[in-house]
């Protein structure tokens, strides 16, 4: 076991090595924006859960004792959702640990047993999942306690703490078992880039569908003020029956609420052990073999015959961008699949906001809301462009030795990202037009707004990355970690989207209040187009001004 502790010591040393370097520039703005973004997401989650929980608790059908059932269901489904999500993330993390070479090409040569490396990797995953479990389940438990008035006191919070500790254990154990078939599935998908992209699109589509269902509940809640219209008596009976048998989440919830606490906790612990033991032995057999195969490059070899023929520099740079993104699974997922599916997210969001606005005002501001949603989602989708330079990895610096100007390199990237954004906006226009949410004229205006906002962000994000690139140091040159450039650009982008969107809604509202005999669509479109165009021009000036000097000095940021 000493080797496991040594491996952790190595991790701690690596993690803090950056702080020990003298004269290292600290990216304070990036850190602050990351913290603000995370704090905002956390606060929104807690508030949304509280509002939902309060309404959900009131679905009693005039039987007061049903309130306790609702609170029990809330906690059970929360624990269950955390378990499922953590299990899915755990499968991915364990798969990465099994197949990603990273530090393993060093570790495999050292006198460290395979199961110790596995143990060290799984404990690392456990700590990360424990943190997320604390951040989600503790506020959920506090809210359910406050709402139910359950007088469990110290015992309630004591068992909550145990449940929080056990949840990542259960998910890690289950993930360890599922990681093996997942590895075989991923090997099947290896080098099948288009099939993989299609699967990603379907996966995100399915996630949006679930999201849409959730939004339906929210819109109904907003329309009626009561969830009983969605959750009818029969539905609630089914939900209760499922919650009662939703193991292993039910073990933990029952323990928290003091129902055979010791026995339920014991069952949860036994289940953990029952899952971990076979997983441990399976991985022990599988781990070294999988790792060895990866280290030896035993993968299905992708072959493609290429004709040697000339293309223009720009066409070649554009093609390079496409190949790199398509053939790197995480990039294809983050950018291509997301850009294709974002339009459906926009549609869902516009539907929700339309319902919300109908409660506040009788004004028709569907177009302005669509503008806001498009701005927000194009900002989120194009945040990927903050890796435009870093994505080239070691070739990012090697480009400086090739006869190509910084302007040509950047233009290739702008064209690629611009083409993806235009495609995404075309789908947005088709979806919003076909569903009748907007008129053809509004759809056309929306398309241009979306494209201009996207281009503005692409240019700003590219320059930010050029100013402080974070080149990956792994062998495959893949950017895997988020950095402060991402959060800073996203925060600024969202702020812009909010101001522009809110401005157009305000214009529309004021024009209706003061009954100005001029179509509000024209004025709000003019406003948003001017704002977006100014932002776009500023971004392009920011990108191209002093580009040659910045590009030449790029080494300094390394």
């Amino acid at each position, binding site marked *: 076991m000493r080797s496991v502790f040594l491996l952790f010591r190595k991790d701690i040393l690596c993690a803090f090595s950056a702080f020990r370097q003298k004269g290292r520039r600290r990216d304070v703005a990036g850190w602050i924006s990351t913290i603000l973004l995370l704090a905002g997401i956390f606060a929104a989650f807690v508030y949304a859960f509280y509002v939902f929980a309060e309404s959900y608790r009131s679905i009693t059908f005039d039987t007061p004792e049903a309130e306790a059932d609702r609170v029990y269901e809330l906690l059970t489904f929360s624990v269950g959702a955390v378990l499922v999500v953590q299990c899915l993330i755990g499968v991915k993390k364990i798969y990465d640990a099994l197949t990603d070479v990273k530090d393993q090409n060093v570790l495999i040569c050292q006198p460290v047993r395979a199961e110790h490396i596995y143990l060290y990797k799984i404990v690392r995953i456990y700590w990360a999942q424990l943190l997320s479990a604390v951040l989600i389940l503790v506020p959920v438990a506090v809210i359910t306690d406050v709402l139910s008035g359950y007088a469990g006191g110290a015992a309630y919070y004591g068992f909550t703490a145990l449940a929080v500790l056990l949840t990542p254990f259960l998910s890690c154990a289950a993930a360890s078992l599922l990681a093996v078939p997942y590895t075989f599935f991923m090997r099947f998908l290896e080098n099948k880039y288009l099939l993989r992209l299609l699967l990603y699109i379907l996966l995100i589509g399915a996630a949006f569908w679930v999201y849409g269902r959730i939004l339906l509940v929210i819109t109904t809640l907003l329309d009626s003020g009561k969830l009983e219209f969605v959750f009818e008596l029969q539905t609630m009976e089914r939900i209760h029956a499922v919650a009662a048998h939703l193991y292993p989440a039910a073990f933990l919830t029952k323990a928290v609420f003091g129902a055979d606490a010791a026995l339920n906790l014991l069952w949860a612990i036994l289940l953990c052990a029952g899952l971990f033991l076979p997983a441990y032995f399976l991985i022990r057999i599988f781990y070294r073999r999988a790792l060895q195969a990866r280290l030896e490059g035993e993968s299905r070899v992708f072959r493609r015959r290429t004709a040697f023929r000339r293309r223009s520099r720009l066409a*070649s740079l554009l093609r390079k961008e496409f190949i790199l993104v398509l053939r790197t699974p995480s990039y294809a997922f983050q950018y291509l699949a997301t850009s294709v599916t974002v339009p459906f997210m926009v549609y869902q969001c516009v539907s929700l906001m339309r319902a919300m606005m109908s409660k506040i005002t009788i004004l028709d501001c569907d177009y302005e809301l669509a503008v806001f949603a498009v701005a927000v989602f194009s900002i989120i989708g194009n945040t990927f462009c903050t890796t435009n330079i870093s994505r080239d990895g070691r070739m990012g610096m090697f480009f400086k030795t090739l006869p190509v100007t910084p302007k040509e390199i950047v233009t290739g990237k702008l064209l690629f990202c611009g083409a993806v954004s235009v495609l995404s906006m075309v789908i947005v226009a088709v979806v919003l037009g076909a569903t009748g949410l907007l008129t053809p004229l509004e759809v056309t205006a929306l398309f241009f707004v979306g494209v201009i906002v996207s281009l503005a962000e692409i240019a700003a994000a590219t320059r930010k990355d050029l100013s402080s690139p974070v080149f990956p140091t792994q062998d495959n040159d893949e950017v895997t970690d988020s950095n402060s450039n991402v959060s800073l650009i996203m925060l600024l982008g969202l702020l812009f989207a909010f101001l522009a969107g809110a401005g157009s809604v305000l214009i529309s509202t004021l024009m209706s209040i003061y009954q100005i005999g001029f179509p509000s669509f024209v004025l709000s479109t003019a406003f948003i187009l001017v704002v977006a165009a100014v932002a776009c021009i500023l971004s392009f000036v920011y990108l191209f001004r002093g580009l040659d000097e910045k590009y030449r000095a790029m080494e300094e940021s390394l």
Partner: protein
Amino acid sequence: MIERGDVIVKIEGLYKKYAKAKAYAVTDLSLECRAGEIVGLIGRNGAGKSTTIKCLTGYLSYEKGKISICGRDVRKDPVRAKQELGYVPDNSAVFEQMTGAEYLNFIADLHRTPTGVRQTRVRELQSVFRLGSRLDSMISTYSHGMHQKICLMASLIHRPKLWLLDEPITGLDPQTAAALCRYMVFYKRKGNAVLYSSHNLDTVARTCDRVYLINGGKIAGHLDLTQFPAAEREQKLSALFAEKVGETV
């Protein structure tokens, strides 16, 4: 038109300091390399060989000095200067997600190499470096040596006037290393210049016409190997190393 003996590379008074470093990595360094010769850069680890090469390629910026390739200033006319350059980096930087052929095509596109020339060059280079059918496979599946081979091929696809190599022998099997040395000699005989850094004095003695010894970021010595018989060259190099660096090899 460049003739044999014309200056291809000229570095005058080069100073380079890394952003976070206190001392200069290269100080007042001057050297030149002519068409039809192979020039070697030797020195200990961290002496400044790679830094000099990287400044020459535009990979690194520099504080002071003048660098020209075929008479074109690397700073003022970078694109045209780099068109005459074929560079093999020490880290085998390539796009791993491309196939070898796609990568060669990409580099040729950036150099605007005509279709016919690149087809002839690929055939020619394939016979030297022998990547075989692996040229159609993804580079991420290549071994270290194969990475080095694809970098070598990419550096020559456009027939550069200057072939610049940073530690090119590292990671190559003995046959390929020998083939590379033979090709360097063949390439200089075509009227081109070859400049490379190496720790391997034996290889340098066998291939180079002139050698610069770099120590502490400065040119510590210079040797014209053509003035000595082949059998004495390695001995002369070792003696120069011992005299200037203070260590026997």
